[in-house]
């Protein structure tokens, strides 16, 4: 949907994911979309250098979130939120509505 605006389809996936879950990480994105992890790593790095997202290390995983200090964050989120509403329900369920609530360690499914 916003591919032509952002220049590639990966950015759109990153933005929708961060919008849906408030955060993302490269390996998680790669698994969700079944694509090579380096594609996401490259674009996450690019977005971070542009000040649009920020990252922090949690254990050995680099977690990315929107940069709350990015000057155009409100406008960017408004655009992504509007575009998100146009995603087909099946696609939303597959990629952007996954379980995020806690699960006790060792608990069977």
């Amino acid at each position: 949907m916003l591919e032509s605006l952002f220049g590639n389809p990966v950015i759109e996936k990153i933005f929708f994911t961060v919008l849906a879950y408030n955060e993302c990480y490269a390996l998680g994105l790669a698994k969700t979309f079944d694509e090579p992890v380096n594609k996401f790593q490259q674009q996450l790095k690019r977005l971070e250098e542009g000040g649009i997202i920020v990252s922090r290390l949690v254990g050995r995983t680099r977690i990315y979130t929107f940069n709350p200090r990015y000057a155009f964050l409100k406008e960017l989120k408004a655009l992504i939120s509007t575009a998100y509403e146009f995603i087909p329900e099946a696609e939303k369920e597959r990629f952007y509505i996954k379980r995020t609530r806690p699960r006790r360690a060792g608990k069977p499914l």
Partner: protein
Amino acid sequence: MRVDWKKIKIRELAALVCQKLDENDIDAVLVGGACVSIYTKNEYVSYDLDFVSHSRLKDISEVLKDLGFKRESSRHFVRAECPYFIEFVAPPLSIGSERVKEEEKIKTRFGRITLLTPTDSAKDRLAAYYHWNDPQALEQAVMVAKAQKVNLRDIKRWSVAEGHKEKYEAFLKRLKI
């Protein structure tokens, strides 16, 4: 002027870089922790100099080469013997969702530094406290506000606009201790 790179002070380096960029018509404003160091006369010590510029990094890189700085990654520059590293963060020059409208100029024997005003420097630090709960950033904002004359009315107005009135009150309380 001979520069002792091992012993150079952050204020001197900021001035050298600003002067060199200015001579080459490259706009740059010092932001972040380096402003706190300068305004508090090193009560807070920062080892990175963050600049915001609208010029191309390629052009900046060429100019910094004259000072011996090498581009280490896409936005970072380092120099042998120099304890500080320089970063050019992505524009625009803003604090939260507000554009920075005023800049401060400080004259030194190494050149003129263009940096955030003390009020904007305090806001810049408070932004980190507001959004990430960073206690060090709160302390830095307090240090700037104690060392320099800041416009508390403007900081309050901005804090409310950013949705952090309560945290502004915490800053004010901390300032009065």
